[in-house]
C-alpha cells in the first residue's frame, strides 16, 4: 500500500514537472525561448539511461576499460555494472597470499590458460570490482598463505549471488580466519557446491 502511494506520488510529481515544462514554454500555442543550436547534439549531454544501455551492449571485457573515457562513464559503470552481463567461466579462481597483506587472484579457464592475474593490496581488497564482471562457475582454490582472510571471505559472501563454484578448496593457512566469516561463507556456498576440501 505504502509503495503504491509512493508510486502515485512520484507519478503526480512527474506529471506536474512535465506540465510545468510545457506551460513555461507555450504562450498561445507558440514556443517561447529558443534552445541553443547545439542543444543535446552531443553524446555527453544525454541522460544516464541511454549511456547505460550502450554499455550493456558492449562485450564484457571492454566495459571496465571504458571507465577511463570520462568521469561520467566511470560513474555510470560503477553504478550499474553489478547488474550487467558477466563473463562466464567454468574455470578456476586461485587466491594466493605470498606476502602478508597482499592477495593475488588468478583466473584460469577450462583449458588451463591463465586469463587474469591481479594482485591486490590488503587495504583495498577490490575483489568485488573483479566479480562485477566475472562469474565463476568452476573451482575456487585458496592456496598459499593467508589467502582466506576474513576480508576476502566477507567480500565473497557478499557477492555470492554471482559466483557459483562447484568446488571450494582451502589449502592455505586458516589460523587467522574467524569462525564467523568462515561460517557465513560456507552457508552461502552450501547450495551450489558439490565438493569442499580442507
Amino acid at each position, binding site marked *: 500500500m505504502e509503495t503504491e502511494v509512493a508510486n502515485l506520488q512520484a507519478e503526480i510529481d512527474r506529471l506536474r514537472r512535465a506540465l510545468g515544462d510545457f506551460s513555461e514554454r507555450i504562450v498561445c500555442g507558440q514556443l517561447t525561448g529558443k534552445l541553443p543550436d547545439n542543444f543535446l547534439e552531443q553524446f555527453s549531454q544525454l541522460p544516464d539511461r541511454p549511456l547505460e544501455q550502450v554499455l550493456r551492449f558492449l562485450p564484457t571485457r571492454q566495459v*571496465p576499460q571504458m571507465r577511463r*573515457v570520462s568521469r561520467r562513464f566511470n560513474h555510470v559503470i560503477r553504478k550499474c555494472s553489478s547488474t550487467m552481463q558477466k563473463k562466464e567461466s567454468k574455470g578456476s579462481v586461485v587466491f594466493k597470499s605470498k606476502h602478508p597483506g597482499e592477495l593475488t587472484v588468478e583466473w584460469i579457464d577450462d583449458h588451463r590458460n591463465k586469463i587474469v592475474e591481479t594482485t591486490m593490496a590488503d587495504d583495498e581488497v577490490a575483489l568485488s570490482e573483479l566479480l562485477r564482471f566475472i562469474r565463476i562457475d568452476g573451482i575456487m582454490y585458496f592456496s598459499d598463505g593467508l589467502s582466506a582472510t576474513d576480508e576476502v571471505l566477507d567480500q565473497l559472501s557478499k557477492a555470492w549471488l554471482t559466483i557459483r563454484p562447484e568446488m571450494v578448496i582451502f589449502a592455505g593457512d586458516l589460523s587467522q580466519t574467524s569462525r564467523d566469516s568462515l561460517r557465513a561463507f560456507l552457508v552461502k556456498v552450501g547450495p551450489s557446491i558439490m565438493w569442499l576440501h580442507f
Partner: protein
Amino acid sequence: MIQLCSNDDPPVSFTVPRKAVELSKTIKTMLEDLEGFDMEQTPIPLPNVDAPTLELIVKWVEQHQDDPPPVEKPRVEDDDSDDSDADDDQEPEVVIPEWDKKFLPTDDEQKNQLFKLLNAANYLEIKPLLDIGCKYVADKISGQTVEWVRDYLNMENDYTPEEEAKLKEEIAWAEGL
C-alpha cells in the same frame, strides 16, 4: 489522429495515428491522464524534440505501429551493493531489423542527429527505438580504444593524468578478459 509539435520557433507539427504515437510511453500515459479531453484538437508540444528529430520519430512509430508489444521486464535499480539480485543478468539479444538499419542516421556527419534521436527516444520512452539506437552505438564502439571512443562520442577526458594512471592500474586485470 494526434498532433505533435516540435520545439522549433515556429513549431512544426506532425499528425500521427494514435496507435503509432502510443508507442511512446510518455505520450501514452499523458493521453490516458487526459482522457475526456478532445486530444484530436489539441497539439502536444514536445519541448525536447526538434523538427528533424521529430520527423524521424514519426517515421519510426508509423513503421512500427503494428509490432507486437515488447515483453516488459522490471528494471532493477542498482544501489551499488553486491547483494542485489545480479543473478539474472542476461540481456535479451537486440537485433537491429533491416528497415531500422536503413532508418538510423548512421553517417558520421549525422552523428549528432543520432544522439538527438536517442535523447528523444529516451524522453518519449520508446524503448525498442532506444534499444536499437544504443545497440548501434555499442556495435560502433565495440572493440575500439578508449581514445577512439572519446573522439567518436565527443567526450572530453576530464581526468587528471595522475587519476587516469591510477585508474589504468586499477582496471589492468580486465585486459586479459
